[in-house]
C-alpha cells in the first residue's frame, strides 16, 4: 500500500487523523496572534513578556498544520495546484470549495504572522548584533536587523508598522478558524452542518492556543531562567482566558445537543446521541472532561497560581482539544446514511507516527527559536519597566503595577481629574474655605531615570496612549 493508503482511512471515514491534526495545529496557532494583535490594541501590558514566544509558536504550529494537506493531496510535488495558478493541464481550483478558502485563509494567516513576528524582532535583533562576540553572529544578526540603529525616526516607523500589522492580524484571528469550520459547516453531514461552528471553533482555538502557550512558557521560563520576566501574573492571566474560553466551548457543546433535539431532524439527533453513547463515547467524554470540567479548577486562585497545576491542566486542555476535533470528524463520518457502510475507524501506525512527528517539528523549531532569537520582546518589556516611565509612581498614589499606600483604601478612589491641575494642598485649602492658597508642595524625588540610547531600548509611552 502506498501514499495515503497507509493511513487508517476507509470509504466511510475518509477524513480522520489528518484533518484532526490540521485543525488541531491551526487552533494552537491562534493564541500567538491574539496576544500579539488583539491584546496589543487593547493595551494589555502583560502581553509583552509572552508575545514573542507565542508568535513563534503560531508560525511553527501553522508549519505543522501545513504538513497534513501537503500529504493529503497524495502527490506532494503537485501541492502548488491548490493555488489558483495557471497550469498546462487546465486544472483550476474550485472556488466554491471551502477547502480552497482554507488555502487562502491559512496562507494569509501564515504570511501576516511571519511578517508581524519579524517586524517585532528587528530592534531586538539589533541588540543581539550590538552585543555579538563573533564576526559570524555580528554579520548574521546585522543582516537580519536591517540596519536598525534605534533612531527616533526608526522607532516612529516601527511603531506605525506594528500598529498596522496588529490591525491587519486582528480580523485574521477570527477569520482563519471560521474558514476552517466552513470545511465542515458547509457540508450536509449531520453533526457538521451547523451555524454555531465558526464562533465555536474560534473560541476552541483560542482555548487550545493558550493551553499550549502555558505549557511552553512554564518550561521556557524554568529552562531559560526567565522567571522574573515571565511571572506568575502572566500565567495567571492566561489561566483566566482559558477558563473563559473553556466555558464558551462548554456552552457550544450544550447548544449543539440542544439544537440537534430542537431541530426535530432524526439524523441530527442520532448523530449527537451516537457521539455521547455510541462506540466513540470514550472520546466524547474525554473531550468533555478535559475541555469543560477540568478547566473549571481555574476558578480557584490556588490552582491559577500553582505552576505544576496549571502545567498539567494546560496539557489536559490540549488533549481535550485534540479529542474535540477527533469527535467532530470521526463520529460524524463513521455512521453515515447507509448502515451497511458503517465502520469503526482505527488509526494505523503511520497516522500516529505522522502526528507525533508534527510535535517533533513544532518542538524542534521552538527550541531552535529559543536558542537563536530573542525569546522575549526586549523593547516592549523595557517600555513597561519603571526606568521607561515618564511619570514614575510616587508615594501618594497606587499604580497599576505598584501597590501604593492607598491601594486598599476604598475612599481613595475619588475623582482625580478635578484635582489634577492643582497641588493636593490647594485642593484641601479650598475644601476648608481658606482664602490663602497654601504653598505648592515640594516635588518628591523622582524615580525617573534617563533612558538609555541603546538600540534595544524602546521609547514607547504606553501609559499616555
Amino acid at each position: 500500500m502506498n501514499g495515503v493508503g497507509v493511513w487508517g482511512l476507509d470509504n466511510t471515514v475518509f477524513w480522520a487523523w489528518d484533518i484532526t491534526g490540521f485543525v488541531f495545529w491551526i487552533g494552537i496557532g491562534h493564541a500567538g496572534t491574539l496576544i500579539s494583535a488583539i491584546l496589543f490594541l487593547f493595551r494589555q501590558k502583560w502581553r509583552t513578556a509572552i508575545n514573542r514566544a507565542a508568535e513563534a509558536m503560531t508560525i511553527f504550529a501553522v508549519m505543522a498544520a501545513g504538513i497534513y494537506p501537503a500529504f493529503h493531496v497524495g502527490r506532494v510535488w503537485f501541492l502548488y495546484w491548490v493555488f489558483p495558478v495557471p497550469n498546462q493541464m487546465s486544472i483550476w481550483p474550485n472556488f466554491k470549495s471551502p477547502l480552497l478558502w482554507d488555502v487562502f485563509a491559512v496562507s494569509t494567516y501564515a504570511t501576516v504572522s511571519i511578517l508581524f513576528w519579524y517586524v517585532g524582532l528587528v530592534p531586538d535583533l539589533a541588540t543581539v548584533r550590538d552585543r555579538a562576540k563573533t564576526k559570524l553572529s555580528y554579520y548574521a544578526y546585522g543582516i537580519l536587523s536591517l540596519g536598525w540603529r534605534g533612531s527616533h525616526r526608526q522607532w516612529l516607523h516601527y511603531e506605525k508598522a506594528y500598529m498596522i500589522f496588529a490591525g491587519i492580524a486582528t480580523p485574521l484571528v477570527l477569520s482563519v478558524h471560521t474558514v476552517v469550520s466552513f470545511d465542515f459547516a458547509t457540508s450536509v453531514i449531520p453533526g457538521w452542518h451547523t451555524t454555531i461552528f465558526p464562533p465555536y471553533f474560534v473560541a476552541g482555538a483560542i482555548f487550545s492556543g493558550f493551553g499550549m502557550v502555558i505549557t511552553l512558557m512554564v518550561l521556557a521560563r524554568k529552562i531559560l531562567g526567565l522567571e522574573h520576566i515571565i511571572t506568575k501574573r502572566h500565567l495567571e492571566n492566561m489561566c483566566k482566558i482559558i477558563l473563559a474560553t473553556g466555558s464558551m466551548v462548554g456552552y457550544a457543546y450544550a447548544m449543539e445537543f440542544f439544537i440537534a433535539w430542537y431541530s426535530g431532524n432524526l439524523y441530527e439527533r442520532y448523530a449527537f446521541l451516537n457521539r455521547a453513547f455510541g462506540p466513540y463515547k470514550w472520546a466524547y467524554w474525554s473531550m468533555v472532561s478535559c475541555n469543560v470540567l477540568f478547566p473549571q479548577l481555574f476558578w480557584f486562585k490556588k490552582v491559577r497560581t500553582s505552576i505544576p497545576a496549571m502545567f498539567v491542566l494546560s496539557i489536559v486542555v490540549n488533549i481535550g482539544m485534540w479529542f474535540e476535533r477527533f469527535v467532530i470528524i470521526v463520529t460524524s463520518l463513521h455512521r453515515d446514511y447507509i448502515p451497511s457502510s458503517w465502520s469503526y475507524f482505527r488509526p494505523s501506525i503511520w497516522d500516529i507516527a505522522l502526528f507525533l512527528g508534527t510535535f517533533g517539528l513544532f518542538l524542534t523549531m521552538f527550541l531552535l527559536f529559543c536558542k537563536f532569537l530573542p525569546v522575549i520582546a526586549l523593547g516592549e518589556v523595557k517600555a513597561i519597566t519603571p526606568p521607561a516611565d515618564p511619570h514614575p509612581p510616587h508615594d501618594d498614589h497606587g499604580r497599576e503595577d505598584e501597590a501604593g499606600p492607598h491601594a486598599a483604601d476604598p475612599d481613595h478612589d475619588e475623582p482625580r481629574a478635578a484635582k489634577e491641575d492643582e497641588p493636593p494642598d490647594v485642593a484641601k485649602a479650598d475644601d476648608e474655605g481658606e482664602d490663602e492658597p497654601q504653598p505648592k508642595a515640594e516635588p518628591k524625588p523622582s524615580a525617573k531615570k534617563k533612558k538609555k540610547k541603546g538600540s534595544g531600548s524602546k521609547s514607547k509611552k504606553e501609559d499616555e496612549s
Partner: protein
Amino acid sequence: MSTTAPIVPGDTPGTRAKLVLGDADFHKLSTDVSGIIERKPTPKYLIGLIAAASILLVMLGSLTTWS
C-alpha cells in the same frame, strides 16, 4: 478611611503584581535575554532538543517507509 493591613501586591483586590520582578534595569534585561543566545546551551536544553528532534525523525522515517 485607611487600613493597616499589609498590602501584598497581587493578592489584594485592586493591586497587581509587578510585570517584571526584581531590579528591572535595561542593561540587565538585555543581558538576561541576549545571554540565552550568547552562552552555550544548557544540558536541559540539549536534552529537550534531542528529544524533540528524535520525535521529528519518527515522521521523517515514516515518510521514507512509504516510498
